[in-house]
């Protein structure tokens, strides 16, 4: 009986010694001399993880390259906004490239578990950089639109005044012009400021306040689009009213 007990204790001790490497893995201590069970059982998993990380980084670098080119060739974005965004892209690209090298140099699953999530969390290319870039582009485009709409409204006003000078009743045309100017003002006060409101957002601002600000900016820009459509419609209606009044 005693002999049997001794044998059981020895078996238990041997079994516990066999678990040591797994315990070390569970504690997150990398040890090249004692590979984890996962590394032993899945020798290609680290390689696969690195490959997926490289693809994720490459995809972001491509997206950053595209938006960078878009911003650089935009004729409507302001110089200050352009410089700021291009700076953001350069920083993100440099950071992602450095992170990619770190990931490729990593030798353990644990290192990879720490590094790979940073591809998303340190840069937020898709959640912050791209949406804010498109909001800045749209907002500056609307600022340019306000200038063009104001010029068109002034031209319509000049035509109205000429027609009134010739004795024609321009009340209807003036009313349409008033509507157009009101819509233009709404764009100026709502959509145009969005660029300055969101351009400073960074990955560190995710999830709040970045998420709320980007959503509010998007809503303001969509409203701005509707306002601009209505302003253009009103200017065209004013033009029609002028032509009808003078019998043209």
């Amino acid at each position, binding site marked *: 009986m005693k002999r049997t007990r001794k044998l059981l204790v020895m078996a238990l001790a041997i079994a516990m010694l066999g678990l040591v490497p797994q315990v070390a893995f569970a504690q997150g201590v990398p040890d090249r001399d004692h590979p984890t069970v996962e590394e032993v059982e899945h020798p290609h998993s680290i390689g696969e993880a690195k490959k997926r990380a490289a693809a994720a980084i490459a995809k972001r670098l491509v997206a950053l390259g595209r938006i960078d080119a878009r911003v650089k060739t935009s004729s409507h974005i302001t110089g200050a906004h352009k410089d700021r965004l291009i700076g953001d892209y350069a920083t993100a690209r440099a950071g992602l490239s450095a992170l990619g090298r770190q990931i490729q140099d990593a030798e353990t699953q644990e290192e990879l578990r720490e590094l790979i999530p940073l591809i998303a969390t340190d840069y937020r290319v*898709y959640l912050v950089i791209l949406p804010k870039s498109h909001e800045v582009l749209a907002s500056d485009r609307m600022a340019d639109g306000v200038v063009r709409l104001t010029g068109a409204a002034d031209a319509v006003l000049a035509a109205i005044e000429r027609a009134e000078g010739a004795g024609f009743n321009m009340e209807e045309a003036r009313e349409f012009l008033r509507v157009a100017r009101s819509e233009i003002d709404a764009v100026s006060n709502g959509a145009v400021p969005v660029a300055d409101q969101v351009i400073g957002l960074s990955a560190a601002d995710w999830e709040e306040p970045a998420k709320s600000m980007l959503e509010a900016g998007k809503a303001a820009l969509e409203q701005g689009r509707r306002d601009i459509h209505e302003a253009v419609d009103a200017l065209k209606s004013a033009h029609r009213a*002028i032509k009808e009044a003078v019998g043209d």
Partner: protein
Amino acid sequence: MFKEPPLTATTALLVAVGIVLVAGCSASPTGVTTTSTEHLSELAQPDTSEFPTSAQEAAPTRKSVAGGIGLDGGSADTATTMPGMSTLGGGTALEQREDAEDAGDAATDVDLTAVAGAELDLPDLEPLLADLDGLLGDIDGEINDLDHSFDNDEGDVEE
């Protein structure tokens, strides 16, 4: 009995002349000569319903006013010689000349409306407004790209 026929003839002649004068004046004012200034003074009485207010001065309806002033045959100098025309303005030659000039201005205004109509044909506004259609297209494109960027988180959350 013997003198009755000449009296009748004279009366008939006077009546005929009267009819001709009345008919001539009412049917064609422009045909009246300076010898008919008494009738002209009546014709030249301004029709206040047609006379423009300051706000209406340049209105196309001034054509009727200009037409009335055209009773003088279109000559401002002739108009100054017509006492009846004084009802349109002052009685002095200067005032009448000013009236005539106003009449000319009114006629010019009418012409200007035609010019304004041509100008308000708005060849300048058409391309301007067409350009705004391009603006709408550009803005629609920007907003569509923005929508797409919101739909495309590409694993920023999951990774």
